[in-house]
């Protein structure tokens, strides 16, 4: 049949194009070279990603001549698989706080070379043996300003009060289960320094009180979209996602009370051929003069306490609100505990969620 032949040819062409495209990208890091010409660094895109390129990647290239190529975000499982198969597609990855611990990181990550990276200026709880924070972010409470008749929610207790503040709630159940549990425990009256040992049942019981109102989400953009469209009236959100919505004119605002603060840890896969250049990159972006420049294009707080953040958005940075109740998720105590109990926490949460 004539027509079928044409279709076959088209399909063949498409397959060829896709194959070429797939081969063209992403393999630049797999060939070891004595002098590194390019580094593949995780870049998750969006406003955050273009700001990283502008404030970190381009200045680094200007200084060292090493090109930075955007790489995909890899889960801890994918990082482990990459190291096991020795296919180094990304040189600077974002391990979770659990993976960057001494116990878990040993076989997966290169220890950060703190002779190259100056950790004396980094905020406490933002660097470990196997990871150094590029910035500090937070899970905070975002809410609609147009749905509660002038009343303003401020605490996690308000978040769980669907009578006073009606509407659905967005929570990152497919992204960060511990952060969800911390919020529930704070709402139930647990002090931030009394979270350990984690009372998972108490947290789940608290969550049960609003279970039918919760919309679980996986990515920051999904959570932001739920709040923007008004499908939820409140959400546990990435703080920068809420403030950027507000700045774009959406009727939303943020409450910092009970924020869950965390560092975006950078790490280097064990055995990566570009390890020394990767360390150089980590040292550069966490240095005093460079680290703060990021806050001039995105609401990410610097991890280097000596750097100067953008004074205009100081009020939107998690680090400005540490005088209020907060939880440091990447602190060694919490991260160690969660890492040791990760399976039981996840299973308990999933069983509760599906019941």
């Amino acid at each position, binding site marked *: *049949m004539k027509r*079928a032949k044409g279709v076959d040819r088209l399909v063949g062409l498409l397959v060829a194009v896709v194959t070429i495209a797939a081969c063209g990208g992403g393999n630049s890091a797999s060939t070891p070279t004595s002098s590194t010409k390019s580094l593949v660094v995780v870049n998750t895109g969006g406003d955050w990603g273009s700001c990283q390129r502008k404030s970190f990647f381009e200045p680094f290239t200007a200084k060292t001549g090493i090109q930075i190529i955007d790489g995909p975000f890899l*889960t*801890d*499982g*994918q990082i*482990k*698989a990459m190291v096991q198969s020795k296919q180094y597609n990304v040189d600077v990855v974002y391990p979770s706080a659990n993976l960057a611990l001494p116990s878990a990181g040993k076989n997966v990550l290169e220890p950060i070379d703190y002779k190259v990276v100056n950790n004396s200026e980094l905020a406490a709880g933002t660097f470990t043996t196997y990871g150094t924070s590029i910035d500090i972010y937070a899970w905070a409470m975002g809410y609609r300003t147009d749905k509660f008749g002038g009343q303003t929610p401020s605490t996690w207790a308000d978040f769980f009060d669907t009578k006073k503040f009606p509407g659905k709630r967005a929570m990152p*159940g*497919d992204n960060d289960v511990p952060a969800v549990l911390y919020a529930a425990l704070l709402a139930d009256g647990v002090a931030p320094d009394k979270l350990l040992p984690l009372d998972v049942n108490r947290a789940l019981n608290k969550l049960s009180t609003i*279970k039918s109102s*919760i*919309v*679980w*989400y*996986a990515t920051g953009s999904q959570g932001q979209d739920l709040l923007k*469209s*008004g*499908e939820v009236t409140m959400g546990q959100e990435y703080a920068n996602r809420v403030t950027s919505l507000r700045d774009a004119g959406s009727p939303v605002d943020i409450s910092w009370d009970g924020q869950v603060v965390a560092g975006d840890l950078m790490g280097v896969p064990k055995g990566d051929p570009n390890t020394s250049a990767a360390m150089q990159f980590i040292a550069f972006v966490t240095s005093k003069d460079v680290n703060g420049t990021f806050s001039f294009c995105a609401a990410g707080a610097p991890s280097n306490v000596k750097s100067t953040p953008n004074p205009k958005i100081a009020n939107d940075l998690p680090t400005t609100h540490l005088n209020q109740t907060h939880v440091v998720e990447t602190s060694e105590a919490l991260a160690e505990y969660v890492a040791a109990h*990760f*399976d039981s926490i*996840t*299973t308990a949460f*999933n*069983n509760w*969620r*599906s*019941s």
Partner: protein
Amino acid sequence: MVFFFAWPLVQMVFRSVTDPEPGFDNYVRFAQTPSGVRSLLETLGMSALVTLICAVVGYVYAYAVRFASPRIAALLLFAVLFPAGVNVLVRTFALQVVLRDTGIINQLLLRVHLINEHLTLIRTEFAVALGMTCMLLPYMVLPVYSVMRGINPEYVQAAAGLGARPVVAFLRVFLPMSLPGLYAGGLIVFVAGLGFYVVPQLLGNNAGGRFLSQYTADYMAQAEWGYGSAIGTVLLLVTLTTLATAARVLKVGEILRRSFGGAR
């Protein structure tokens, strides 16, 4: 083919009984985890439901294509095939915009005062069924249409000529002859449905019924390869059992050969 498809499957099965320790611990763990078993049941139940919906809708659609004028038939086929060329993610996001509380349907119904409060459309089983049906309908329409095209309409005319009313002629002559297409389409839709991830993730409620693929993702992200492999093996066994049963009872292999091979 053997190297690219069979070998990884062998590795998966092997890993499910060796990682982290030799034995069937991974399978026991799965059987004893309520959320895991619920995911399996949800996956099977939803795939079966979608197969049923696709069978009804797809059959009527294919029938319309079969007996429409050539120009209309081409248009109808284009209408069902064209969306299949658009990325699943894009189509799922589009359905999100249509279905959500502040989406097109709800705004329209609110505007014309048919409803006073928004209908809960998104993050329901309904939304998942709708989304999966949208994605899988072409795979039902094509084999059914292909088989229908091979049926000589004179048989139906002959039945009518011998005094059968149109409904009887359809039910006793046309429908039985077109059943092979339904079986083949049903099998493709059911098996494809078992592996869905994007649609239930974006349109489902993510609470009660998560798909097995969603459940597994949690553990793969933590590099629990052994447990993930065990779940994969369970799903593989379910799929193979379905295929084997279908092959024996419905002789689907022969139908597929006839309907796709015969069309060339």
